[in-house]
Structure formats: structure tokens, C-alpha cells
């Protein structure tokens, strides 16, 4: 999932303003300006945090400041802009929140610092989904695409090559991940949906949508093509030119036949399309489905028999960071994995990287609903206190093991990425 403007834009601006006000306050309190001799002076611990809005919450930065004294300054951008910034302005941020698939572009640029796994307290407790590509119960997970464990380790501190075996040099400490599928409007479709092929079913002509982020959209397209039995890919996340041509041909034919109502690029667009009834079936992200539902409109994050397309993100550190800032960065990452933030993410329908610490910060009922696929005993609330689901409901797709265990592929950057982007442009122009 590529996450742009997940939250209201005002929110991030407010966060920024607060950050600025906080910095002024700290400067005033440091004694340098007022000259009060008994005010203890210390450098404010500030980290510039570049990322999409998905993990950037007021609550998280507040709690982090409270627990560690580290002030987080959010720099919010879309996934594409985050990547651009890392490559062109590596000095403009300290901590980077990005997705694993971006690493195939970021790491070769030499702007990412190799983190030392030994300094990450919970590293060994990170879910084996990331380190071994399997569930805690040992079940193997689909590894098509840029699966996190393929790009998790580097060969050396300054290496630009990914290591196939675990090393102490880590590119990206995982924080959050999820399994994506199609969102549907059960009230308008009125029948069960169980396969990705339904996206191209003429029954939904003019009422379907797919996301217009080429590297993710083509993965959804591949799920559809494979589900319809027209082709089986060796790796959906790394297609050959012929496979790209075939996939785009099938999609283009559907487009010309008027299958799609619109394409969407950000969270709000997808919510609006679905909520207004312009589309009844489309690629969607879990929190967007929740958003539609919270508007009082029926919407299901539909589990499909072919499985899910998954994504995962986490923290990188800029190569320009050194000295005490680097220590704060480790401190911040350690804090993030220590449980509070993990529980916060779990309550939004994502999954946290360290399950044990998140569990310790959630009630048994919350854990049961979000992670074990159990019916909620009491109302399920979002982190901000609003009721998400009434007591008695179960999560779409069931438990963590049901959902993550059914992952078929991961968001990816292909070897033929350049060709794919051109073909995608043709698809849009068709």
C-alpha cells in the first residue's frame, strides 16, 4: 500500500505547528534566552521524521515526547515524494518511514544508514513474518514481489547489496504491515464475492476501480489475471516484459469496454468513490474501508480465495545522521517497538511488528477482535475513542494468521519497472 493523505491534511499541519511551538518553548526554557540561571539547559532532542501520514499521529508524537523526551517533527509527503526526497535531499530528514519495496530504489542510492540489529532491543522479537517469511506458527508466507525478508539485511555497513542471509546490518526496522484485498459494497452487489476475477466481471461494468499507482496497481491486475486463469506468473512482483504486456492488454481491453469508473490515487479518493456509490468493487486499503463504514455505509474488506497483496513499512535512518542524533534515532525506534505504538497501530487495523509488546498494551477483548478473529465482546473503539464496530462483530478476513497466512504477494519494484511504468501510461491513455 502506498499511503498518501491518509489523515486530514490539517492534522499534519497542526502537528507541524505544535512542533514549531514546542521548539520555541524549549528554546525559551533552555535558559539561553531568558538568562534564568536555575533553568536546566539541555539540547532539545529533535528528530525530523519523513513519511506518509499513515503512521504520523499527534498521539504518537505526544506519547513519544512524554516517554523519551524526543520531539518528533513530522514531514509528511506521498510515498512517491518520500522516495524522491530521500534520493535528492538526504540531509532534510533524520528518520524515514517508508515501505520495503522502496528499498530497491533507496539502498542503491547510498543514502540509507545500515542500522545495527544489536542495538534494537526487540529485534529478536520481531515477528518472523519479516525475518523468516513465516507466521509465528511456522506457516510459510507467499514470497512473490519485494517481500521484506529479501531486502531486510545488508552485506556490510556501507554495502549497497542486500544480503540473503541474516546479518547485523538492517535496512529498515519493520513497524507496520497489512494484507490488502478488494473492497466491495455488499448492499449494492447483493451476492457473495470470493475471487479477484470479479474486478473484471462485466456485471460491474462502469462500477469498478483500481489504484493508479503503477507498481501497486499492476500487482492487483496480476492477481486478477491469475485468478481468471489466463496466466500463471512465476513472480507477480517481478514480471517479464511479455507478462507485463499480457497483463496490460487484459486491463486495457477491460478499460476500453468501460469496466472502470475511475482510478484512484489517494485514500480519500478511494473513500469517496465507494461512499458515493460510483464504484461497488475496487482495490482498497483497510483503513479506507473502515472510513466508509464509519460514514454509515456498508463496505467489506473482502477476503478472496486467491489471497492478499501485502505491504510493510518501517523506519530507516538517513546516512547523514550521526553523533547524539543517531542515539536518539535508536532510542526512538526502540520506543516505537516497545508496545504503546504497536497497540495504537493494531487498533487501526494494521499489524505491529512486535506482537508481544503490542499485546501487553491492549485489552484481551481488543486483542481477540483485531488479532484472533474473535467476535468483539464490547464495542471496538478507534485510538481516538470513536466506536468503530459494535459488540459482536468479527473482523473481515478473520485472525492475523488467517490474513497474513493468505498473503500471495508483496508490493514490489520490478526489474522491468521502467518498462512497466511506460505500459501503465499506455493503459491510462487507452
Amino acid at each position: 500500500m502506498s499511503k498518501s493523505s491518509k489523515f486530514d491534511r490539517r492534522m499534519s499541519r497542526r502537528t507541524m505547528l505544535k512542533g514549531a511551538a514546542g521548539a520555541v518553548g524549549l528554546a525559551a526554557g533552555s535558559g539561553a534566552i531568558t538568562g534564568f540561571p536555575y533553568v536546566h539547559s539541555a539540547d532539545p532532542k529533535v528528530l525530523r521524521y519523513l513519511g506518509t501520514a499513515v503512521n504520523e499521529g499527534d498521539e504518537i508524537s505526544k506519547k513519544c515526547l512524554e516517554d523519551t523526551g524526543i520531539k518528533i517533527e513530522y514531514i509528511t509527503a506521498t510515498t512517491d515524494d518520500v522516495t524522491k526526497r530521500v534520493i535528492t535531499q538526504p540531509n532534510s530528514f533524520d528518520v524515514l518511514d517508508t515501505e520495503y519495496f522502496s528499498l530497491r530504489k533507496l539502498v542503491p542510492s547510498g543514502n540509507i544508514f545500515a542500522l545495527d540489529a544489536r542495538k534494537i532491543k526487540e529485534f529478536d522479537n520481531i515477528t518472523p513474518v519479516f525475518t523468516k517469511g513465516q507466521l509465528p506458527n511456522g506457516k510459510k508466507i507467499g514470497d512473490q514481489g519485494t517481500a521484506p525478508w529479501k531486502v531486510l539485511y545488508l552485506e556490510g555497513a556501507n554495502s549497497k547489496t542486500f544480503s540473503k542471509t541474516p546479518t547485523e546490518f538492517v535496512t529498515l526496522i519493520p513497524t507496520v504491515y497489512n494484507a490488502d484485498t478488494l473492497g466491495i459494497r455488499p448492499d449494492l452487489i447483493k451476492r457473495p464475492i470470493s475471487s479477484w476475477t470479479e474486478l473484471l466481471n462485466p456485471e460491474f461494468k462502469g462500477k469498478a476501480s483500481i489504484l493508479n499507482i503503477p507498481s501497486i496497481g499492476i500487482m492487483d491486475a496480476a492477481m486478477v489475471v491469475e485468478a481468471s486463469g489466463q496466466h500463471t506468473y512465476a513472480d507477480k512482483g517481478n514480471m517479464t516484459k511479455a507478462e507485463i504486456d499480457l497483463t496490460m492488454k487484459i486491463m486495457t481491453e477491460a478499460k476500453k469496454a468501460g469496466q472502470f469508473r475511475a482510478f484512484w490515487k489517494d485514500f480519500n479518493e478511494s473513500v469517496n468513490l465507494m461512499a458515493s456509490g460510483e464504484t461497488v468493487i475496487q482495490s482498497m486499503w483497510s483503513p479506507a474501508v473502515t472510513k466508509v463504514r464509519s460514514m454509515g455505509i456498508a463496505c467489506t474488506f473482502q477476503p478472496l480465495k486467491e489471497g492478499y497483496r501485502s505491504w510493510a513499512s518501517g523506519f530507516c535512518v538517513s546516512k547523514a545522521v550521526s553523533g547524539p542524533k543517531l542515539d536518539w534515532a535508536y532510542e526512538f525506534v526502540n520506543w516505537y517497538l516497545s508496545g504503546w505504538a504497536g497497540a495504537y497501530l493494531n487498533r487501526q487495523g494494521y499489524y505491529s511488528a512486535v506482537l508481544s509488546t503490542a499485546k501487553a498494551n491492549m485489552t484481551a477483548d481488543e486483542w481477540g477482535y483485531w488479532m484472533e478473529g474473535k467476535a468483539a465482546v464490547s464495542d471496538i473503539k478507534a485510538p481516538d475513542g470513536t466506536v468503530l464496530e459494535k459488540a459482536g462483530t468479527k473482523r473481515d478476513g478473520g485472525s492475523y494468521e488467517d490474513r497474513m497466512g493468505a498473503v500471495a504477494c508483496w508490493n514490489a519494484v520490478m526489474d522491468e519497472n521502467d518498462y512497466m511504468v511506460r505500459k501503465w501510461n499506455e493503459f491510462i491513455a487507452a
Partner: protein
Amino acid sequence: MMQGRKTFVAWLQAAPMMVVFSVFFLLPLLLVTIVSAWDYNEYEMIPAFSLRGYSDTFEGCIADLPNLCTILKTYLKTLKLCLLTWCLTLLIGFTVAYFLAFHVRSKTWQIVLTLLCTIPFWTSNVIRMIAWIPLLGRNGLVNRGLEGVGLIRQPLEWLLFSEFSVVLALVHLFTFFMVVPIFNSMIRIDKRLIEAAYDAGATGWQTLVNVVIPLAKPGIVIGSIFVITIVMGDFVTIGVMGGQQIASAGKIIETRLNALQFPAAAANAVILLGITILIISALTRIVDVRKEL
């Protein structure tokens, strides 16, 4: 000596504009042109001469003949949208300006009404654009209204996410850029010329065609330049109102940038700029704006 000083002063007077022009226009343009001839890979630009940005852009154009390749199709589509928008904004803009200049007698009212036209500009472009969506959607106000009146049974799908909605939004957003320059030209037309035409027995239509339009030409050309340059480069309006299903020249550049293919994006920008300059220079051929001003 005097001559030398005069030239020096003239250069000095022109200097601030020259500096601004070269730093903010010529230099970036030069850089874009240079970068467009570089090579690139997934994550960096390689400063080695390569025309890959251009050749990739026109990939398959010859092989696809007689069918049009993507880039040509995209440009034709962009030109089509641009032409439609231009015609409509010109028609509406001219009418509004004519009304303001010739039918509204008092200066105060002219100013008040012109300012009234600017009110939509107090909100952002994107918001004015998005405001159309709930109106035109499948379950939008227009469809509901038409269904309520009994004119249609099925909602009209082409109202939204279509070329219709794109042109509608573009016209809505940019007509004002036509109104102001045309109004500005018209207000300078000596009213006695109109009276003279009337006295000489010209009909209203003849006066319009033979007096008003020729004298309002500079305004028309300036307005057209505004509208054409904006629409040719637009990707936001076409994206949002077209449901991201309609490609435009600007959109190709955006996709390239997002894929970190800066040289390819620059190549497309150079091509777009070239085409726009061709259109503009054709327009200025018709009217010598400097002379008319």
C-alpha cells in the same frame, strides 16, 4: 559619451527584469533541457549523453503505424481538450467582457461586477473542482434532479469522470483569464467608433465583427495564451475530473517524476514546451500583441 551613458542607463533599467528572467526562467529551462539528454536508472540521473528519454517517449510510434502510439494519442487528447476549453472560454469570456464593457454604464458597477467574478478565486482551484463531483456523480444532484423530473430513468454516466466533466471544470476554472484581458481591451475602445459605425448604418453584428472584435484582438490573444498554456500543462484537473482515466501531457510528466525518471520527465517537458510555444507563436503571428498594446 552621451550615447554610451544612455545605453548604460537603459541596460541598468532593464537589468532587474533580466536577472529575474534568467535566474527563474532561462536557467531552469536550460537545466531541464540538459537533463532531458541524460541517461537514468531506477534511482539516479546519469550525466552521460543519451536520448533515451526521448526515444522511450516515442517508443513504438513507427511500429504501431497506422495506429497512433500512446504519446501521440495523449497529445491529440490534450490538444482536443485544450481546443474545446479554448473555444468555450473565449465564447463565454468574450460575452461577459462585452456585457461589462458596453452594457454596464457606470464605472462603479463595472468594477463591482468584475470583482464579483474574482470571488470564486478566493477558494483553491482543487476545491472548486472537487465541488463538481457530488453534483455530477451517479447519485449526484443533477442525476437525482433529472430522475425526479422524469427526464431520465438511468443516471447519466457521462456527466462525471468523462471528457465532458473535464472540459466543464476547465472552463469553469479558467474563463476568468479570458474575461479580464478582453475586458481590458474593450474598455479602451473609443465609444465614438461604435457610434460612428451605428451612424454609418452598420448592424449590431457588423459593428461587432468589423469594429469590436478587431480592436479587442490583443485581449483575445493574451487571454488565449493564458488558457492554452494552463490547459496544455494541466494534469490535476484532467486527473480529478477525468477519474484518472484520461491521459494528458502533464500527467505523463508526473508519472515519470513519480517513477524517479527525471530525464524522461524532462524530455517530455521539453516536448510539451515546444508544442505550446508553436501554438503561442502561431497566435502571436495573427496579432502583434506589442504593437496593438
